[in-house]
C-alpha cells in the first residue's frame, strides 16, 4: 500500500481522455491539503479566472485515509467562484475511502464536458456519461438517479452531486456528498457546474495489503479505544455539535436575527441541541471509517392531502446550519428550521451562506433598502415559510436580485445598500459571535472557516486584550490543523491525533520518511497554501469588516473596535509573511 509517490488520476472532460500520474513529493506534501496545493501548482493557474475550463477541480486524500479511525475526510481544492482565489473545502461521507479503494491519492478534473455529464471512476474503470436529462434536478433526485444508473457498489461507493445552484454558477453552491455531508463552502458546486459535471461516482472496489506485523493492528486498537472511549466520542456522539446552540446562547455568542442580538434565552429553548434530540432526531449516521457517528439525521413531514396523507424526508443537522437557518433567521421551532434546511439541501446551496444571506435580505427589506419586487416573497424573522420559498429562489437564481445575492451578501449589498449589516467575514459568517479574535480570524482565514484556527475557542476563554498573544495563538494553531487536513483527519479527532500519534500511525504503515519532522511539514504546507491564496489575489487589507461586527455584545461586553482593528491589522500583516515563497513563516 505504501508508495513514495502520489497516484493521481487526471480526467480531461473536454477530450474525454484520462491520464494516471505518479507524482513525487509524498514526504513534503503528505496528502490532503499539502497534496492539493502541490496539484494546484501543477495543474492550476493563479492568474486565470475560475471559469476558465483549464482550471482544475481537485480531490485529495492522505496517507492515513481509511487505515485509522476518523481518517475519513476528503479535501476539495479549486479557485473559488466566491472570491476567485485559491481555496479548499472539506467533506466527510464515503468519498475518502472510496478514492483510497479506487487506488487513488487524488482526482483532478480539467476541461469542460460538452453536455451535462456524470463521471464514474473505480479501480479499473473510468466513464463519462451524458446526463443532460438531469439538468436542473435537485440534489436528492440527482442522487437517486445516479444510484440507479450506476451499476453495483451499493454502500461501497461515493456519490457527489450538485443541484440547480451549481448549474447556475452560484458562488454559494455546495457539492452534496453522499446525501448527508457537503463540500459546503466557497462555491465548489459552481466549479463542477462550470465543468458540466452533475455528479461524480467513486467506486471503492479495490483494496490493499496491510503490514503483516502486529504493530499496525495494535496501534489501530489503541487509537480506536481512544476515539471511542474519551469525552470526544460523547461530545460528538450524543447531542453532537448542536449542543453549541445552548452553550453559545448562554455566552451571548449566538448570532440571532442577522446578528442584531447575540442571545435569546426564550427562543433558544425551541432550537437547542436537546430540543432537536428529543423531538426531531430520527437516527444517526457515520462517515465511512468513523465509529463516532456524529451525523444527526432529523426529519420533516409534509401534509399533502387533507385526508391525513403525509410524506417525510430526512435532513441531517449540525450546529452550523442550525445557527444559519435557525437563530440567524429568528426561527425558534426545530421542525421549521429543518424545513428551511431541506430546501437548501434540494437546491444544493451552502445552507450557512444561504441562511446568512437571507438574514441580510430580511433586514434590508425591513429597512426599505429592497422591496418585495426583489425578494418576490415577504421575508420576516421567524417566518419559515417565507424562507423556504426564498431559499428556492436563491438556489435557482430566480431573478436578478437572487442571482446577485448568490454571488455573496456583500455583492448584493454593494448594489442595493446595506453593507453595514451584511454578516460577512470573508464569506458569510460561521455561527460564532464570540468576540474580536474570531471576527479577525474568520475574516482573514485561509478558508474563511471557523475551522482554520481556534479563534472562537480562544474568545470563549480569554477576556484580556493582548494583540500579540492572540495573534500568536492563531499563527501557532494553524500548522497543526494543516497537518491533520493533510492526513486527512476529521478535525473532531484533533485531541487524539497529536503529532506524536500521527508519526506512530505513519510509521506503522511504512511512511517513515513522512513521519519525521511533522512540525516542519505542517509549517511548509501552511505556507504553500497561503502562497497560492496570495498569488491568486488575496489582499488582507481589502477584506471588509461590516460595521455590524463592531456593535455586538458578548459575555465580555461590547466589542472593542480598536482591539478588533488592531487584531486584523496585525494578523493580516503576519499572514503577508507567507505570500513570498522564501520568507520564513515566523518573521514578524
Amino acid at each position, binding site marked *: 500500500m505504501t508508495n513514495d509517490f502520489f497516484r493521481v488520476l487526471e480526467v480531461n472532460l473536454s477530450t474525454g481522455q484520462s491520464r494516471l500520474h505518479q507524482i513525487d513529493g509524498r514526504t513534503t506534501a503528505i496528502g490532503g491539503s499539502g497534496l492539493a496545493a502541490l496539484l494546484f501548482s501543477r495543474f492550476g493557474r493563479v492568474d486565470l479566472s475560475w471559469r476558465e475550463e483549464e482550471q482544475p477541480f481537485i480531490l485529495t486524500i492522505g496517507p492515513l485515509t481509511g487505515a485509522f479511525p476518523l481518517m475519513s475526510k476528503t479535501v476539495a481544492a479549486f479557485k473559488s467562484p466566491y472570491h476567485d482565489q485559491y481555496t479548499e473545502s472539506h467533506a466527510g461521507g464515503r468519498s475518502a475511502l472510496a478514492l483510497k479503494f479506487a487506488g487513488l491519492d487524488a482526482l483532478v478534473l480539467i476541461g469542460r464536458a460538452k453536455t451535462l455529464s456524470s463521471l464514474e471512476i473505480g479501480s479499473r474503470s473510468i466513464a463519462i456519461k451524458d446526463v443532460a436529462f438531469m439538468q436542473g434536478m435537485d440534489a436528492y433526485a440527482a442522487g437517486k438517479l445516479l444510484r440507479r444508473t450506476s451499476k453495483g457498489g451499493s454502500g461501497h461507493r461515493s456519490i457527489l452531486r450538485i443541484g440547480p445552484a451549481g448549474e447556475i454558477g452560484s458562488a454559494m453552491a455546495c457539492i452534496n456528498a453522499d446525501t448527508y455531508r457537503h463540500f459546503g463552502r466557497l462555491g465548489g458546486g459552481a466549479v463542477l457546474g462550470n465543468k458540466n459535471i452533475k455528479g461524480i461516482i467513486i467506486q471503492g472496489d479495490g483494496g*490493499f495489503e496491510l503490514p503483516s506485523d502486529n504493530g499496525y493492528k495494535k496501534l489501530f486498537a489503541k487509537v480506536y479505544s481512544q476515539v471511542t472511549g474519551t469525552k470526544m466520542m460523547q461530545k460528538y456522539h450524543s447531542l453532537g455539535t448542536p449542543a453549541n446552540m445552548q452553550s453559545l446562547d448562554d455566552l451571548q455568542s449566538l448570532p440571532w436575527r442577522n446578528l442584531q442580538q447575540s442571545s435569546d434565552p426564550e427562543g433558544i429553548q425551541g432550537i437547542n441541541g436537546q430540543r432537536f434530540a428529543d423531538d426531531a432526531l430520527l437516527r444517526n449516521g457515520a462517515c465511512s471509517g468513523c465509529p463516532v457517528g456524529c451525523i444527526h439525521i432529523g426529519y420533516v413531514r409534509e401534509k399533502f392531502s387533507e385526508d391525513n396523507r403525509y410524506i417525510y424526508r430526512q435532513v441531517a443537522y449540525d450546529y452550523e446550519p442550525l445557527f444559519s437557518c435557525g437563530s440567524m433567521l429568528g426561527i425558534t421551532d426545530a421542525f421549521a428550521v429543518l424545513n428551511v434546511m431541506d430546501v437548501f439541501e434540494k437546491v444544493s446551496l451552502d445552507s450557512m451562506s444561504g441562511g446568512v444571506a437571507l438574514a441580510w435580505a430580511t433586514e434590508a427589506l425591513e429597512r426599505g433598502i429592497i422591496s418585495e419586487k426583489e425578494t418576490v416573497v415577504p421575508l420576516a424573522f421567524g417566518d419559515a415559510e417565507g424562507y423556504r420559498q426564498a431559499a428556492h429562489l436563491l438556489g435557482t437564481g430566480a431573478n436578478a436580485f437572487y442571482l446577485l445575492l448568490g454571488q455573496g451578501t456583500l455583492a448584493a449589498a454593494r448594489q442595493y445598500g446595506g453593507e453595514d449589516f451584511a454578516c460577512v467575514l470573508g464569506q458569510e459568517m460561521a455561527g460564532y459571535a464570540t468576540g474580536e479574535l474570531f471576527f479577525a480570524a474568520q475574516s482573514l482565514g485561509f478558508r474563511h472557516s471557523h475551522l482554520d484556527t481556534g479563534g472562537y475557542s480562544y474568545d470563549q476563554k480569554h477576556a484580556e486584550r493582548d494583540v500579540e498573544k492572540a495573534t500568536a495563538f492563531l499563527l501557532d494553531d494553524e500548522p497543526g490543523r494543516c497537518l491533520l487536513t493533510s492526513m486527512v483527519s476529521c478535525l473532531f479527532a484533533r485531541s487524539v491525533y497529536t503529532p506524536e500519534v500521527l508519526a506512530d500511525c505513519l510509521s506503522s504503515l511504512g511512511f517513515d520518511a513522512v513521519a519525521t519532522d511533522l512540525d516542519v511539514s505542517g509549517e511548509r504546507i501552511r505556507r504553500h497554501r497561503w502562497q497560492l491564496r496570495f498569488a491568486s489575489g488575496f489582499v488582507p487589507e481589502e477584506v471588509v469588516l461590516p460595521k455590524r461586527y463592531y456593535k455586538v455584545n458578548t459575555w465580555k461586553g461590547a466589542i472593542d473596535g480598536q482591539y478588533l482593528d488592531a487584531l486584523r491589522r496585525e494578523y493580516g500583516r503576519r499572514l503577508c509573511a507567507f505570500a513570498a515563497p522564501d520568507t520564513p513563516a515566523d518573521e514578524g
Partner: protein
Amino acid sequence: MKILTAPHMERCIGCHSCALACARLVHKRLSWETAGIRIHSTGGLSSGFAAIRCLACLEAPCVDACPTGAMAQRKGGGVIYRKKLCIQCGECAAACPVEGILQDRDGSIYVCIQCGQCVDFCPHDCLVMRDPETVTPGEVIG
C-alpha cells in the same frame, strides 16, 4: 461453537468499522470488499444498512457446490474454508443464496469464519456472537 448474528442492524450507522476490522485482522487488507462481512446500504443512505455475510447455514449450499472440498461444513453452522484446497472456481460464491461469499477480481475467496473479531468494533452493538441453538432466524439477519 458460536455464530455471528446481526440482531440490531436497525442501529447501524454505516461506519464500516466491522468490515474494515475483518479485512484488517483476518485478511490483513484495507478494503470494504475483501472481508467476511460487508456493509451495504439498502437503497441509499436514507434507508439503512444490511450486513452481507455468511448466515451460518447448517447445511451450507456452498459446501455442496465446492468441487475440491475447500468448503467444509462447520459444526454449529457456517463453513470452514481451506484456502490450500481452493482452485478459485467461484462455485461457492455462486451457490450462496445471500451473496455471503465474495470472490475478488484476483479470484480469492472471502467468507466469514465466525471468529467474532468484528463484533468489538461495532459502536452500536449491532453484531453479537451467539450459540446457534439460541438464535431465531430473524436475529441472524437483523
